[in-house]
């Protein structure tokens, strides 16, 4: 069996319209960045799904680890004062 003849894995992000965020839509194999971009266009934007594309080598992505979800995000949990609803504004005050 021939191995590793598919090229490395790339993650694809599509921007639907100018001004909107780039959203992850899937992954693909390609040997270099030009090929990755071309494959991404053919695979993920056959029906006008995007106006811009990012392709990123999957190996370059650093991800939080699922086992640590609790402690990792915990520091934000007790800081309700970061939300606007924490503050009381007198009745009748506008534009705030």
């Amino acid at each position, binding site marked *: *069996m021939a191995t590793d*003849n*598919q*090229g490395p*894995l790339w993650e694809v992000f599509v921007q639907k319209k100018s001004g909107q965020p780039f959203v992850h839509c*899937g992954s693909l194999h390609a*040997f*270099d960045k030009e*090929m990755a971009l071309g494959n991404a266009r053919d695979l993920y934007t*056959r029906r006008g799904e995007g106006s811009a594309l990012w392709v990123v080598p999957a190996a370059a992505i650093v991800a939080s680890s699922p086992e640590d979800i609790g402690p990792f995000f915990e520091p934000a949990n007790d800081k309700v004062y970061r939300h606007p609803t924490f503050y009381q504004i007198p009745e009748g005050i506008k534009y705030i």
Partner: protein
Amino acid sequence: MSNTPELEKKFDARLEQNDFIEPKDWMPENYRKHLIRQISQHAHSEIVGMLPEGNWITRAPSLRAKMVLLAKVQDEGGHGLYLYTAAETLGTSRDELLDALHTGKAKYSSIFNYPTLTWADIGAIGWLVDGAAIMNQVMLQRTSYGPYSRAMVRICKEESFHQRQGYEIMCRLSFGTAEQKEMAQDALNRWWFPTMMMFGPPDKDSPNSEQAIKWRIKRETNDELRQKFVDRTVEQAEYLGLTIPDKNLKWNEAKKGYDFTEPDWSEFYNVIKGNGPCNKERLDARNQAHKNGEWVRAAAAAYAKKKKEAVAA
């Protein structure tokens, strides 16, 4: 691992809450294995499914029909690729998966081992085969494995054109000349029971189903989906003035659904075993295509290597 029972309990609790499982999350080894098998079979079916339809690209009756069929077959290739990458997130490689297909170790949907004899078959495939596939895939949009579910959402969006173009072909033929209508009826006669088999064996004989439902990989059973398919398709056949080739097909008011004849399950097992009309032809075509593409992969790899070296120098 000493804490496996604890992890398994947590895993079950997440499924209970309809949580999606993501690639790096802990999962039972059998859940992983089941998914790799199911997703890769699904991917292989998309790729092998290009063959019976590809058979008609050069003989499509009009330029419009040819354009549409090309776009559809291209979609199927794309669907295969979404699914292969979804399977890869479970720790397998596309090379391994393709190798399993090419050596005959892995299965694909038995429906693609039937021949496409006339243009009406392209209509019947879009209408019935894609219709059945959509029914299965709509359910799989809610499957518990995140990457599989997301691939299904994309696929479902694209598949609806496939079914509609098939039904359009059936309309053209059914409302055409007597000869054309006969072609349409003949295609329905040949594709009806093989399509019914696509949902898999009856629940009582489906060993993997119960576990798949428990893991929320599947959300509806084979028999439930088959019933739904029949109930939705009867009216579409009536509109075309075609007869579903089942004398026992009858509305059952009590169950609010149709009674129907089960497909011949011995035929199903026989085709899966490799004895269908086109098993050998399909597998040979896949192997040949892979072999013919070898120089493209080698050239792309050599070019990428050369460029990398040029940057380093």
